[in-house]
């Protein structure tokens, strides 16, 4: 089922790195660093401007891989990787898309687990790659069964 979508990509989506969204995000984590929220302190820092916290790309819209559906509830996050080519700046625009890179089945404690790997990309307006990430999710047999019954 999901295997058929390996190599398929979404169409890049325009994302604004918004100051208010960054503030809400760091407040939720509790990582309220002036470099993320205080324009004055950020301007006087080596960064010279406000930056977004490392895990902020979680908030971006990566578009939808046509036809690909996953369970709305119950997918477990197994692993996550980020690579940043430079900091992400507040106020900039990033074009983000994702690609399904791998689907595998593995025997687990409660039966056959499906391991899904999606890779995300963020590029500047000039086409410069700013970050890439890879998310590994686990679908338990129970969640997969619920998903198949709904479909």
């Amino acid at each position: 089922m999901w295997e058929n979508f390996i190599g398929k990509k979404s169409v890049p989506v325009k994302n604004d790195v918004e100051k208010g969204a960054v503030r809400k995000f760091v407040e939720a984590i509790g990582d309220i660093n002036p470099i993320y929220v205080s324009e004055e302190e950020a301007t006087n820092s080596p960064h010279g401007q406000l930056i977004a916290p490392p895990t902020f790309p979680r908030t971006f819209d990566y578009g939808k891989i046509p036809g690909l559906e996953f369970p709305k509830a119950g997918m477990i996050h197994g692993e996550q990787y980020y690579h940043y080519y430079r900091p992400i700046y507040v106020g900039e625009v990033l074009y983000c898309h994702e690609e399904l890179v791998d689907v595998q089945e593995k025997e687990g404690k409660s039966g056959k687990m499906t391991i899904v790997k999606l890779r995300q990309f963020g590029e500047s307006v000039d086409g410069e790659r700013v970050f890439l990430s890879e998310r590994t999710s686990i679908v338990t047999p129970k969640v997969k069964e619920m998903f198949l019954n709904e479909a």
Partner: protein
Amino acid sequence: MKLDFFEFKTDPITKIQLVKYAGASGDFNPIHVIEEEAKATGLPSVIAHGMLTMGFMAQLFSEAIENGAYLRNLSTRFTSKVFVGDQLLLRAEKVDKEGKGTYGYSITVHNQKNELVAKGSANLAFVESTINI
């Protein structure tokens, strides 16, 4: 600023924090906020977003980031579930001797029962305008 070792302990995780994180991140997977839906998928109760734990991992480097650093890599494996009420102890230990202006770290995250809930690695670099640290 010392760069060899970073450590901090979170406050106990609350339901309201999970609701806030869901809103701020856009991750509305109901297993993080709705008890019945978490139970329906076989979980004992709601669990924290893995990305919240990863956000705490990034927070380890907050002071360095404020002083001109940024992460080149941040990578994690979530090894055990994090529940409401859990208090996490995060540690990052420098593993590289002298990189080319970068610093490598191994990271561990334990809960209050000393169970490993996540482990990972990070690579820290400084932006060019950083003259001395």
